[in-house]
């Protein structure tokens, strides 16, 4: 059940806040952990979803919002705010399952509570040869009306040549 994930995630963030003195370090840890999860989650995703290779960033956005988020978090964010060049978009989450029952205490205003998600997306896309930048620009935990994640395409990652073939 998603409550289990939400509760466990909350316990994790609480523990990290105890272990690290400042919010920035916690944010980094969450991002790193998310990355570790993402690079493995992508295999599970590809196996379960049978989606083929995405031809462009718009297809990627659709798959992320309509298939991946639905599959793992049970929600379907909407996709908005495309940049003119088509290399940036926003995911809008009306509600974020990670923050059910969560309130940020006053002394953690720089904490990006759900930062794990950014790492997951970044790690997963790296495994399919896409370098992206992912960050929260709005957060209901901080009083915003919605949660908004901004995704920016950086570049295609070329496969490295195996050693000895250069």
């Amino acid at each position, binding site marked *: *059940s*998603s*409550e*289990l*994930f939400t*509760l*466990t*995630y909350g*316990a*994790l963030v609480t*523990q*990290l806040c*105890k*272990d*690290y003195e400042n919010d920035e370090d916690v944010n980094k*840890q969450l991002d790193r*952990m998310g990355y*570790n*999860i993402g690079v*493995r*989650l992508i295999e*599970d995703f590809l196996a*379960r979803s049978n989606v083929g290779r995405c031809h462009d960033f718009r297809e990627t956005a659709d798959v992320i919002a309509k298939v991946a988020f*639905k*599959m*793992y*978090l*049970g929600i379907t964010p909407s996709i908005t705010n495309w940049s003119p060049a088509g290399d940036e978009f926003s995911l809008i989450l009306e509600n974020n399952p990670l923050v059910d029952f969560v309130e940020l205490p006053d002394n953690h205003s720089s904490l990006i509570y759900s930062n794990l998600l950014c790492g997951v997306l970044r790690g997963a896309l790296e495994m399919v040869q896409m370098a992206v930048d992912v960050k929260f620009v709005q957060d209901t935990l901080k009083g915003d009306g919605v949660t908004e994640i901004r995704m920016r395409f950086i570049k295609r990652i070329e496969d490295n040549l195996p050693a000895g073939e250069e």
Partner: protein
Amino acid sequence: MADETLFQLLHTEVVAAAYGGGRGSGDEGQRNGLTVLEGMGFRVGQGLAERLPRGALVFKEELDTIKFLCRDLWGAVFRKQTDNLRTNHQGTYILQDNNFPFLTQMAWGQQYLEEAPKFLAFTCGLLRGTLSALGIESSVTASVASLPAWTK
């Protein structure tokens, strides 16, 4: 929803986090890490039990409570039930899972058996926390040879 994979991956990161944060290395670090994991599981177990409908938690007998753990709690966390339940009818219960999801990913060999307790601590805490929310004080230990044990 395929969230069990996501949860298992999160659990792996949680285990790693329990051993970070300058908690100390060596035997003391090991013990501290296990304590942290058990504590986290405990809080999550309490939280889960608190969110169940009141009617679901009324058990006539102790055994019914244990069956709840084997079926409903295990089902909620691992999408399966435990494989076997034994008791000495004096307050000790042994829940057996032959395919414990947090361990199935590990390659089996002597060196990894030492790591196994790290992957059981959270679950032990989870059981203890759920029981605590049901008003039952318990001690939960686990051993690998697929025999998590629960004693009251």
